[in-house]
Structures are given as structure tokens and as C-alpha cells.
């Protein structure tokens, strides 16, 4: 995000990077380029390998461009690879991931935003205690509570279902998301909430008509966090998911961990790329969705 000049002047940052000195300018761009190349290298190798044939891969020139680029490996990975129960490639896993993602995204955002709103804008009894509890919960690793969670999900018949995976994702995300929302809503001017209360917007009216319209930015931030987090999750999907409907990441693992036959690196690379594309797209396009200066005009000029 672009830094507002007035804020920039308060930050301990040189105003212009790099300086006018040609030597430091060169060094600056050189370093940046080196890091960029280092960071992009694996991605490059993945893409070129996925476009090569196995014969070409065996030649061992991993940085060389493909001689006869073909999308056969991508087709294989998407449609036919041995990915799990039905051996029909990644496409079923893709839809399983979507089916897991949508309810967990909706539930986690809905619950945590309301909790955060209540804690930030209303006088909740024992609110500070609840907040402390959330803080503690946010730092408990999933592995620690995995077994009791499995027992509980079995008891409520959610174990071994895609919806069960969604519920577990929602539960795991609630503490940290509630804190994020709480901190954001606390920055909304208190008088706006008061004005809404006088105007007859009670708890829900104030939330829906006053607070939510001010919150698209934080919603986008949370949505990005949740989409990438849930999409990239492997452990919850594997432990709680439906054996017949594993998410894409589990399918990817099944494809690449095959113990028999030839290791088809081009298919592995294509499968990994396919799995990574949705979060990548989210990152690329999310920057444009932020709205600057949303509370402008609420308070004195």
C-alpha cells in the first residue's frame, strides 16, 4: 500500500529510496534483483519442468527452457493422475477444496466479525477476560488439540465429512480473527456508534448499516488470510476430511508421494502449480480492492 506522505514524515524512513548517489543506487537495485531472482527461481523451475516431457527432464538441464513445450502434464495432473479414491486427477480435489472453503470462510468471517464488534463497540460483561482467553487460545497449536477435536467431531457426527473440515477451520480461526476484527472496530470513532444508537440502530442495525459499510478493507484482509490458509491447509483436511472427498492439497500429496512406478516430475510440478494458482490469483488481485480513506468525513474536518 502507498504510504500517505503525512504518515511517512512521522516514520523513521529515508524519504527517497534509493538516494541520488549512483553507486548506492546500483547496489540497491542489484541486491533487489538478486533477491527477486532467488525467490522466483523455484517457480521458474516448476513452470518449465511442467511443460517438458519426461525424456527432456531426464537430460538433467533443470534451468533450460522446454524444447517442445506441451501441456500434457497439466492435463494429466488435472484429469488423470492417481490422486486418491477415484484416481481422476486433481479436479475432484479442487471442487472438494471449494466445498470446504466457502462455508468455512463464510462462518469464520460471520462469527468473528460479530464477536469482534461486540467486544469493541459494546459494553460486554467480562469483556476483558474474554479477550484474554481469546489471546491465549490464538496461540495454542492445532496439533495439541487435534485429538480431542477429533473425539468431539465424532461425537457430533462431523468427523469424516467436508463440512466437518469447514467447522474445524472456523473454530481454529475464530480467536485470531476475532482479535483482528476487534482491533479494527475499536478504531471506528465511538461517536458514530453513539449516533447510531440514538438513531435507533440497536446491536444489529448498527452493525449492518454503520459498522459493516466501514469495514470492506478489513474484510478483504481477513478473506485473503482465510482463503489462503484454508486452501493451503493439509493437516485438517487429512485428519478430519472425508476419505472420498479430500481437499486438493491432500490429493497433491497423494500424487507426489506415489511409491510405485516412474516419478513423473512434470506431472508433479503441474499438479503443484495447479494447487497454488488460486491463492496466487487472490494475492495478485487483492491489492486493487482496498479502499483508501473510508472514514473520511465522519469527524470534524
Amino acid at each position, binding site marked *: 500500500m502507498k504510504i500517505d506522505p503525512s504518515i511517512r514524515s512521522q516514520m523513521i524512513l529515508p524519504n527517497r529510496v534509493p538516494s541520488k548517489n549512483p553507486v548506492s543506487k546500483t547496489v540497491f537495485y542489484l541486491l533487489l534483483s538478486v533477491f527477486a531472482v532467488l525467490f522466483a527461481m523455484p517457480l521458474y523451475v516448476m513452470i518449465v519442468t511442467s511443460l517438458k516431457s519426461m525424456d527432456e527432464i531426464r537430460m538433467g538441464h533443470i534451468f533450460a527452457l522446454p524444447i517442445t513445450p506441451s501441456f500434457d502434464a497439466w492435463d494429466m495432473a488435472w484429469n488423470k493422475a492417481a490422486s486418491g479414491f477415484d484416481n481422476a486427477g486433481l479436479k475432484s480435489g479442487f471442487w472438494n477444496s471449494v466445498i470446504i472453503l466457502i462455508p468455512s470462510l463464510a462462518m469464520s468471517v460471520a462469527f468473528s466479525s460479530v464477536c469482534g464488534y461486540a467486544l469493541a463497540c459494546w459494553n460486554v460483561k467480562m469483556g476483558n477476560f474474554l479477550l484474554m482467553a481469546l489471546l491465549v487460545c490464538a496461540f495454542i497449536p492445532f496439533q495439541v488439540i487435534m485429538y480431542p477435536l477429533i473425539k468431539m467431531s465424532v461425537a457430533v457426527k462431523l468427523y469424516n465429512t467436508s463440512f466437518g473440515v469447514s467447522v474445524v477451520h472456523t473454530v481454529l480461526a475464530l480467536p485470531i480473527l476475532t482479535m483482528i476484527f476487534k482491533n479494527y472496530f475499536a478504531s471506528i470513532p465511538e461517536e458514530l456508534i453513539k449516533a*447510531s*444508537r*440514538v438513531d435507533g*440502530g440497536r446491536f444489529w442495525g448498527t452493525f449492518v448499516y454503520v459498522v459493516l*459499510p*466501514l469495514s470492506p478493507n478489513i474484510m478483504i484482509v481477513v478473506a485473503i488470510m482465510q482463503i489462503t490458509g484454508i486452501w493451503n491447509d493439509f493437516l485438517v483436511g487429512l485428519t478430519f476430511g472425508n476419505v472420498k472427498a479430500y481437499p486438493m492439497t491432500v490429493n497433491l500429496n497423494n500424487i507426489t508421494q506415489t511409491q510405485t512406478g516412474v516419478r513423473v516430475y512434470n506431472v508433479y510440478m503441474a499438479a503443484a502449480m495447479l494447487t497454488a494458482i488460486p491463492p496466487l490469483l487472490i494475492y495478485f488481485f487483492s491489492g486493487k480492492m482496498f479502499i483508501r*480513506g473510508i472514514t473520511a*468525513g465522519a469527524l470534524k*474536518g
Partner: protein
Amino acid sequence: MSTVSVKNIDKVYQGKTHVLKDLSLAIESGEFLVLLGPSGCGKTTLLNCIAGLLDIEGGRIEIAGKDVTNKDPSDREIAMVFQSYALYPTKTVYGNMAFCLRMKKKPKSFIDKKVQETAELLQISELLHRKPATLSGGQRQRAAIGRALVRDAAVCLFDEPLSNLDAKLRTEMRIELKKLHNKLKSTFIYVTHDQVEAMTLATRIAVMDGGQFSQISTPDELYEHPANMFVARFIGSPAMNFVAGTLRLDGAKSILVTQEGLEFDVSHYPFVVRPSNGHQVVLGLRPESFHRPTGKGATYQLTNGILEPLGATVLYYCQLGGTDVVVSFNPSDLQGVKTDQALEVSIDLDALSIFDAATELRL
């Protein structure tokens, strides 16, 4: 019927800070009551309690004859204008004004009619489609007042609504608010720390100090007969001059003798409480109660003066006896006066106030 009655209310923050102490106040229908006091005196807290935005720890609040002590702000038939305006930034001016009517599920045609009428009254019809961010400070102020007026509430609450405007705009809006009140005849409760705003707007002023009322009275009464030294100090600019002294009762005559030996004949002073001989008192003199000698009555010497011409009046910073005082003169009164000389003045003995030196209460 849009009276407001506050009965013995207490507000305690977090169980320890006792902000409002057993306050009672009855506001008549159609009054323009100003809550006036220095910052931290509890005036905004009291307003928030009346609005229902803060719960009270004791007492009872009635609006339009109904007990609203435990009711939600939206059920109290009140409207409120906030210091920061608190306009909803994502809604247009129209949306801001229509919001409370929408929340009350009024029909669309009714909402439209009310908003247009109110906008016309405040001359903001051409701003209705604009967002708050594109408005100037004065326009936002009008929009905020419009949002409060649109619902025909029994009582309108104002929380220092003019304090964010520049001096010129503030004067303009002050007059408009007064006109508005005359036209609407609804009950206004208005919080400010600006005594000029209070004096010009109010039909009655409640002066607050430390969570209690120092005096509740009309502006004139507050100015002429302040009930204690706090009110005397707070109302009037420049502030009232105080001179310490002792009362000497001599038959029908009462003489106030200052520490420097100046004597004031206060035989005609309407004492509320009959003082005793030798009572330690403080004499309160308004800057306006000094005149050039008229020939009758006692005269006094003002020394070490410094002139501060303000155009319509001239302030004269000087000493009366050994006490620093400020005197306000007409410029014509001071023609030919040299500041290095003592200035002879007479004092309007009907306009003075006398306070008990120990309790600071009016005698």
C-alpha cells in the same frame, strides 16, 4: 409535553470515580437549557446519561413524563448532535438524515418528505446527495443538526456542537440555532464550556462544577447575582474582580472595609443572610461597574494602569488599593487619560456582589 426531569442521579465510573453526585434538574417544555462548566465537570456525562448512552448508578430520568431510566436511547424520543458531528461517512447527507426514520420503519414517502422539509429549513437541500467527506465544516454541522431534527424528537441534545467551527462560523451558527429554537419550540439541552454561547443561547443555564450544579438560573440572573464565587468567576468576560475585606456593621449602616482600608458603603445591599460584624468577605465587582466620577458618592483611585483598546471598549488593567482589577470603559471615557497617573472612578454600588470568604457563597 417534552419536559425532562432528572432526579437524584448518580454516575460512578468503574466503581470509583464519582462523576455526577445526586443531581436533580427539571427542564420545562420548550426550554433552551445550557449545561455550562469547565472541562471535566461532568456536563457531557450528564448529557450522555439523559441520552441513555451511559447507564446511571442511581436516580431516575423522565422524558415527556415517562420514566426512561432503563430504556435504550432509541426509545427515549431524543435526538443528539455530537461534537465531532459523527456523520456516517459512507452515507450521503440524505442517507444520514433518513437513517433514523428507516430504522423506525417509516414509509418511504414519509421519509422523503421529512428529509426534504428539514433540509429546506437548514438550507442544505442542494447537499443532500453529497457524502460528508466532500462537505465543509459548517455544512457538516448543518447536516448533523438536520439528522437530529428530522425525527421530530421531544428533546434535542447538543454536545458542544459549535466547538469545532472557526470563530466567524460559530457566531453565525449560534444565531441560527437560536432562530431554529424559536421556530421549533422544542426542548433543547446544550452542553458547552463557552460562556458566551451559554449566555446568548440559553433560556436557562445550569452551571456545573465537580459533578454538581453550582447554580441553575437565567443568564441575566447568573450574571447579576452569581450564587457563589465559582459562577462569578466563570460567567462574564473579562471575569469579575474580587477584593477581600471585612464587614463593619454600624447601626443601619453596613460598611465593607478592604485590607488596604478602602471603604464601600453597602447599606443597600440585599443580604441573603444577615452577616455579623467583622465578617470576612470577598467583594465582587464587574469590570463594567466602574465609571468616571459623576460628582456624588465615593470615588476610588485606580493605579498602575495599562490600557488595552478593543475597539468598542477599552480594558484597563490596574490596581484598586493593592488588588489587581480589570475595568471596562467606553473609549470616550478615557480621552486624555495618562496611564502613569492614578485614575479617579466611582463604583456602581448596586451592581456588586458580596461573598463569604470562607464558603465562597453569596451573602
